[in-house]
């Protein structure tokens, strides 16, 4: 039996949830970034899967969006990691528990 769209979506959902888990429950800032990257990857998987299972003839839209998304994700990762470094230098911690400057 060939895998259906549903299966791919389930995989991507699982990937997304694992990413969310990492982002929510780990205290190290880098884990949060890892979680976000996982979620983005899940999203990309969705794009590709929907593109693949869409009715032919397909426009390459899904693929292109995935490419753009990867590019943006790379940028995000770069900035995020730079932020982690900057924060670390400043506060000497990377634990987000201790970073609550957004508090109103």
């Amino acid at each position, binding site marked *: 039996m*060939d*895998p*259906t*769209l*549903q*299966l791919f*979506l389930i*995989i991507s*959902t*699982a*990937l*997304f*949830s*694992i*990413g*969310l*888990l*990492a*982002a*929510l*429950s*780990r*205290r*190290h800032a*880098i*884990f949060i970034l*890892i979680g976000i*990257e*996982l979620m983005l*990857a899940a999203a*990309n*998987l969705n794009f*590709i899967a929907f*593109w*693949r*299972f869409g*009715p*032919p*003839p397909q426009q*390459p839209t899904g*693929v*292109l969006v995935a*490419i*753009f998304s*990867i*590019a*943006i*994700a*790379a*940028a995000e*990762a*770069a*900035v995020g*990691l*730079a932020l*982690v470094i*900057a924060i*670390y230098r*400043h506060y*000497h911690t990377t634990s987000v528990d201790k970073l609550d400057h957004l508090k109103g």
Partner: protein
Amino acid sequence: MNSVAFLLIAIITLAGALAAAALPRLIHAALSLVVAFVGVAASFFLLGAEFVGLVQVFVYVGAVAVLIVFTILLTRREVTGERGINWGGAIVALAVFGGLLWTILKTKSLALPAPQIEPLTVKRIGEALMTNYVWPLQCVGLVLTAALIGALVLVMEEKREEK
């Protein structure tokens, strides 16, 4: 499409992701992340988007993972005692997973097999990028440049203050 390959890829991806999320040592997590990314790239190949898979490997495995590792090294001096898993977050993540799963399984129209398609060549992607998607492409370029500069500034600024 091969269901055995799919199963294999799925297991590798999810195992890698789970490890990346749950392993206590950061460096292990980062390496597991690489595995998960490779798994995702493999599933792209499986879906017939070879180009995206390649990009995924280059960008994520080649660049992002390396960046993460570097960051870990740079911030290594800190000894953080991880106080175990945060159950609140776990519950939320599980709830989201359940909700999404329920929705996907409920939607019967998603259980469709893959249609036959002509392979997506790099040429077609290139043409699309240069015609319909030229403006988004430019924008992404701008964003990348800005991000690059921003990252540099963020990292440099502190040094200047230290002096």
